[in-house]
């Protein structure tokens, strides 16, 4: 039994489904990647596990919310349909999640250490959040409260979960800052987030997350907002922490390079479902799902001959059909065929699983 | 020299009081017909109405413990009476200071002087002062004290001479001993001197005017103690726009003789507190403490009374009177002593045509105005003075409402498509005109019914007087409340000479007024004023609309003072009653 077992997780905002039956597991002490483009449901998945999605109020259907824009862009650059909503960037989904007044319908199970997190009462979940499982967010500036000194932001979690108060808490906070590589930690405790650089802020966020030695750390695009040299620092730090403490890490990213560098296992998400999952080396060595293949072909690489043309996926992530009608990737797939839209494609395979009825052809 | 000691008459209370008229109106109002049985001058004696409320028992304990709070429309401005010309200041000062003569209803009655006499030319006025009167500061009243007051006034310097401060003094006496050219007072003073002999005091004038003896009742000419005069001798008003000296703003400097003493004046609370003067020469005040509090908003005053925050207030809106009466409040009716008129400025064609003026006069239903929007107790005016004054004539030409006749006359005069500008003031309520716009609306509706096109011209009050004075308005509403019983105070200010505000030149009218004004003999004078009134109404410079009393209201458990057409209520008469 893995530390975290997510089974058939579904999250819907009103009429639109953001996560559509995601299952994966995070074994103890391993780094598991959740990879995909904006709108694929990876952030929603993590927030659902953490219980940070706004609950829908009883008996009142949430208003229809904007969902991912749809654009049908044929290979020949033909038809264009109509998206609105936020631009498809990594952060685009988050505001949807945070809209109050509507809420998310969450179903499925997320069993953490024998307990289904999704069925926990809010108060019980609050007791575990920040303690047993913690999270690091993408934008370190906006994720820290601008008007509260960072020391306070760290000690409040120590106070809450470890019962540390006053000097003891401050001392521990300084230790934590030291541990995440912030020089002169005692002075830094009194500073405000805007006085720190981006990399420092992300270190502070990590310090907050690891303050109570959680068994599972969820990192949602922790390096996307950072410069590449800082990104390297932060990845290094995360790796070190995971190795030192044996913490399991759920790494959410769109960057296959990051995945290759840090993850043990990878789940590729597309339109709210896992389309491929495999140990990291197998995935990169033998990508099976056409979407994974397309992603890899889209990335310019430093280690390949220069000016080699890229092979992008056509269309945009908005061009989807519903999973129960067929493969959501079908509109963009080069190898689409009749079976693709004959019904729900199943996830096949064990260690290296994929959700493509035409997998043999691709291979 | 004919010295005729003038007997001072007590006012004769008339049988048919306006309090009764109120009941009458209420009774006939239900048939909803226009006031066919409305009260005209013939039905009433416009002396002050007699009180019919008896003398309910006083609540002695309450009179001593509970202040009587009276809501006033505005703040007083000065505790020195000579430096004021507004009713709110007079209301306060009248309780504290006394004048040589007093007014009851519109009649002149004894004040500090028990009696007076005048010489035949009306240039020497001798007053016989009461015995045993002491000022609040303990000084005794004598002729010398009175003279000291007159000498002080006559010798005012600099800013003290500005009509801004001493309007009434210079109106009555023309000027000062040494006129300050910077203050713009040019007329020569008619005050010649004052001679005291124990309790007798003689004021000499260089010229008689019909202002006397009424002027001696003016609150401005209140007598203050000699010590007070010395105390404020140094207070200067260097220019016309200087602030009033400090002593006029704080209590304790000036001492009067009145039934109340000043206790405090809190400017920020807009509150003046008076306490009983136990040494008062007359009947002592019933309530120990009287408070005047300013509530400038008309509706707020009524609500404060209804909520019990105050026990009485002045200038009740006509519309509120009935509701107050219905709820058990008292709204005693004052005698009428004002006049509202519609002026025809003859410099504007075709108003110089008598027939047009006459036609317009017939077109206006003045009874509706009096019956509907003016306070109860008002009457349609037939001439340019209220009926309680000497010289009121029953024989003036009248112009009763007749719309058909008006149309006909306009047609005959070739003015059937007359279009005319009609001015009225916007942001003001005057005692003679509680709601200018309503009256304007009604008149213009009547005029339009007679085929006249009315162009409304509303003007803010501060600009209204200069605009109408300059003759810019062909038609306009205006009026006047008398200061004291003096026909010249009404007719004289309007028709003594040719003026742009009326735009007519009728020497017959001017002469009639001048003759009456300078006639010292009363009987002759009365006839002369009647003649003058008839001449004016023959000329028809404007249409007198109404004389109506401003309403004053009191709580049910209060015995109100005798109400005065001059709004000179004496609050020492007030007390809380045990009843109701």
């Amino acid at each position, binding site marked *: 039994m893995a530390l975290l077992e997510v089974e058939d997780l579904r999250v819907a905002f009103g009429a639109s489904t953001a996560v559509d039956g995601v299952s994966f597991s995070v074994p103890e002490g391993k780094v598991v990647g959740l990879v995909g483009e904006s709108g694929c449901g990876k952030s929603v998945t993590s927030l659902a596990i*953490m219980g*940070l999605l706004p609950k829908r109020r009883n008996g009142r259907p949430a208003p229809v919310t904007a969902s991912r824009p749809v654009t049908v862009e044929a290979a020949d650059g033909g038809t264009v349909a109509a998206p609105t909503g936020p631009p498809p960037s990594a952060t685009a989904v988050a*505001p949807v999640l*945070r*809209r109050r*007044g509507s809420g998310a319908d969450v179903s499925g199970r997320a069993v953490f250490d024998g307990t289904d997190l999704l069925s926990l009462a809010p108060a019980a*979940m*609050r007791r*575990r*959040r*920040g*303690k047993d499982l*913690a*999270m690091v*967010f993408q*934008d370190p500036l906006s*994720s820290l*409260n*601008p*008007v*509260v000194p960072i020391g*306070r932001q760290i000690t*409040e979690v120590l106070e*809450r*979960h470890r019962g540390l108060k006053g000097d003891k808490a401050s001392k521990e906070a300084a230790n934590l800052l030291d541990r995440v590589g912030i020089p002169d930690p005692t002075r830094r405790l009194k500073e405000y987030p805007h006085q720190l650089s981006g990399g420092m802020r992300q270190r502070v*966020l990590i310090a907050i997350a690891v303050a109570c030695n959680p068994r599972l750390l969820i990192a949602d695009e922790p390096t996307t907002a950072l410069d590449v040299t800082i990104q390297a620092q932060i990845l290094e730090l995360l790796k070190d922490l995971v190795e030192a403490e044996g913490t399991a890490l759920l790494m959410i990213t769109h960057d296959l390079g990051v995945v290759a560098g840090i993850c043990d296992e990878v789940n590729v998400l597309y339109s709210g479902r896992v389309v491929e999952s495999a140990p990291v080396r197998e995935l990169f060595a033998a990508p099976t799902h056409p979407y994974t293949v397309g992603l890899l072909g889209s990335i310019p690489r430093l280690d390949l001959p220069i000016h080699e043309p890229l092979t992008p996926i056509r269309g945009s992530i908005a061009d989807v059909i519903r999973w129960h009608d067929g493969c959501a990737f079908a509109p963009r797939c080069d190898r689409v065929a009749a079976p693709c839209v004959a019904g729900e494609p199943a996830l096949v395979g064990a260690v290296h699983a994929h959700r493509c009825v035409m997998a043999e052809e691709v291979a | 020299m004919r010295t005729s000691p003038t007997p001072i008459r007590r006012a004769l209370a008339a049988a048919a009081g306006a309090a009764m008229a109120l009941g009458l109106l209420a009774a006939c109002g239900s048939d909803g017909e226009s006031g066919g049985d409305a009260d005209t001058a013939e039905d009433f004696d416009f002396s002050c109405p007699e009180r019919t409320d008896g003398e309910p028992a006083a609540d002695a304990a309450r009179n001593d413990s509970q202040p009587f709070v009276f809501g006033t429309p*505005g*703040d007083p*401005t*000065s505790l020195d009476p000579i430096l004021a*010309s507004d009713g709110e200041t007079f209301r306060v000062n009248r309780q504290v200071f006394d004048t040589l003569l007093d007014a009851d209803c519109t009649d002149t009655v004894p004040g500090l002087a028990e009696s007076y006499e005048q010489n035949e030319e009306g240039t020497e006025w001798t007053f016989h002062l009461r015995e045993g009167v002491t000022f609040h500061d303990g000084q005794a009243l004598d002729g010398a004290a009175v003279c000291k007051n007159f000498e002080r006034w006559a010798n005012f310097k600099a*800013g003290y001479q500005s*009509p*801004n401060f001493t309007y009434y003094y*210079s*109106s009555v006496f023309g000027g000062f001993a040494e006129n300050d050219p910077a203050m*713009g007072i*040019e*007329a020569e003073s008619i005050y010649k001197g004052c001679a005291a002999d124990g309790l007798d005091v003689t004021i000499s004038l260089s010229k008689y005017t019909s202002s006397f003896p009424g002027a001696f009742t003016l609150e401005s000419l209140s007598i203050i103690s000699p010590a007070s005069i010395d105390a404020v001798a140094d207070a200067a008003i260097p*220019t016309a*726009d200087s*602030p009033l000296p400090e002593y006029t703003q704080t209590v304790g400097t000036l001492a009067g003789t009145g039934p109340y003493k000043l206790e405090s004046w809190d*400017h*920020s*609370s*807009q509150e003046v507190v008076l306490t009983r003067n136990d040494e008062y020469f007359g009947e002592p005040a019933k309530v120990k403490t009287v*408070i005047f509090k300013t*509530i*400038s908003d008309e509706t*707020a005053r009524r*609500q*404060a009374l209804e*909520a019990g*925050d105050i026990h009485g207030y002045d200038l009740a809106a006509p519309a509120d009177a009935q509701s107050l009466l219905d709820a058990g409040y008292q709204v005693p009716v004052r005698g009428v002593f004002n006049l509202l008129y519609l002026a025809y400025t003859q410099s504007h064609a075709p108003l110089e045509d008598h027939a047009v003026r006459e036609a317009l006069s017939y077109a206006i239903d003045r009874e509706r105005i009096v019956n509907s929007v003016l306070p109860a107790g008002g009457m349609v005016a037939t001439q340019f003075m209220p009926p309680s004054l000497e010289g009121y004539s029953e024989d003036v030409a009248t112009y009763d409402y007749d719309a058909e006749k008006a149309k006909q006359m306009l047609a005959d005069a070739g003015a059937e498509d007359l279009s005319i500008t009609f001015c009225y003031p916007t942001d*003001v309520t005057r005692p003679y005109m509680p709601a200018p716009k309503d009256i304007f609306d009604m008149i213009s509706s009547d005029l339009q019914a007679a085929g006249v096109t009315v162009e409304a011209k509303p003007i803010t009050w*501060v*600009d209204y*007087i*200069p605009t109408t004075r300059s003759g810019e308005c062909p038609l306009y509403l205006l009026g006047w409340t008398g200061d004291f019983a003096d026909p010249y105070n009404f007719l004289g*200010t309007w028709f003594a000479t040719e003026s742009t505000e009326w735009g007519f030149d009728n020497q017959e009218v001017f002469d009639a007024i001048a003759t009456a004004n300078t006639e010292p003999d009363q009987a002759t004078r009365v006839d002369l004023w009647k003649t003058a009134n008839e001449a004016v109404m023959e000329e028809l410079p404007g249409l007198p609309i109404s004389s109506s009393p401003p309403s004053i209201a009191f709580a049910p458990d209060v015995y109100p003072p005798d109400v005065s057409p001059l709004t000179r209520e004496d609050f020492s008469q007030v007390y809380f009653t045990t009843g109701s």
Partner: protein
Amino acid sequence: MLRYTVKRLLQLSVALLGLSLLLFAWFKALPGGPENRLLPENATDQQREALRAALGLDEPVWTQYGEFLARIVRLDFGSSLSSGRPIATELAERLPATVELSLAAMLIAVGLGIPLGYLAAKRRGTWVDFSTVSGSLLGTCIPIFFLAAMLKVVFAQELGWLPTTFRLTAGADFTEVTGLRVFDGLITGELDIAWDAVRHLILPAIALSSIPLAVIVRITRASVLDVVGEDYVRTADAKGLKPATVRGRHVMRNAMLPIATIIGLLLGSLFAGAVLTESVFAFGGIGSFVYQATTERDYPALMGFILVIAVFYVVINLIVDLSYGLLDPRVRVRK
């Protein structure tokens, strides 16, 4: 910070100089001089002319402005045409009443507005939200003089719970310290006076608070909606903090920034709003004074009032800006 304050104050004095010139020119251009206010209606033309001359109204305009300015600098706004007293004295005497009323109104607006705004934001899109927001907006849609009159009819006349006018029952015996009656009553131990003053404050303060209340509800709602969408609130949630901590330390502390600005600006506007309220309740503050000055065309008084209000308004703005530093560390460092 000091640098900034000095800079702002310098700007203020320049602005005030401009304003004084503007006002002077404006009032000069108005027809109807003060003499019409000062004299009764049947004063003679000669008396009017005399007064105009005596008031120096026939001097060259620049001389008049010079004198005006010289006096303003000495805080001498001249004397009121209606009361004949120095305007500075009048304003100073009446200030405590208005301050007390404004503070009371602000207290109501803040005390009610922030929780209501928070509630509306929490329940965004529900009927709670709709009725809270609409209800507070309704307050702004009732002409203030009518609202005041209605409040009096209902609570003072019909129910008889509260007085309709004044700051204290007439003739009450109290000790004056600051001029804020409630406060004075409390510090001198005259609790009955304090209670009396509170009773007199309630209705006018409610009437006056209708507009700021609506503004604060809206701002709070928008501000809270903004903040709850922020990442750091999610971070706070992810820490498993108690809801009260999240609400207080993370949501409200940030949401207070715009609210504080608005409160400052509203305080300035309350002074102006007090004009109608105070006169309807005969409250006796600056508002009543201005109302009187308005109806009587007491231009010097109005001019003095506008200058004082302008200073007040700008100073409040400055205080708000400076207090930003206390509330928001980001600003503190930048300045």
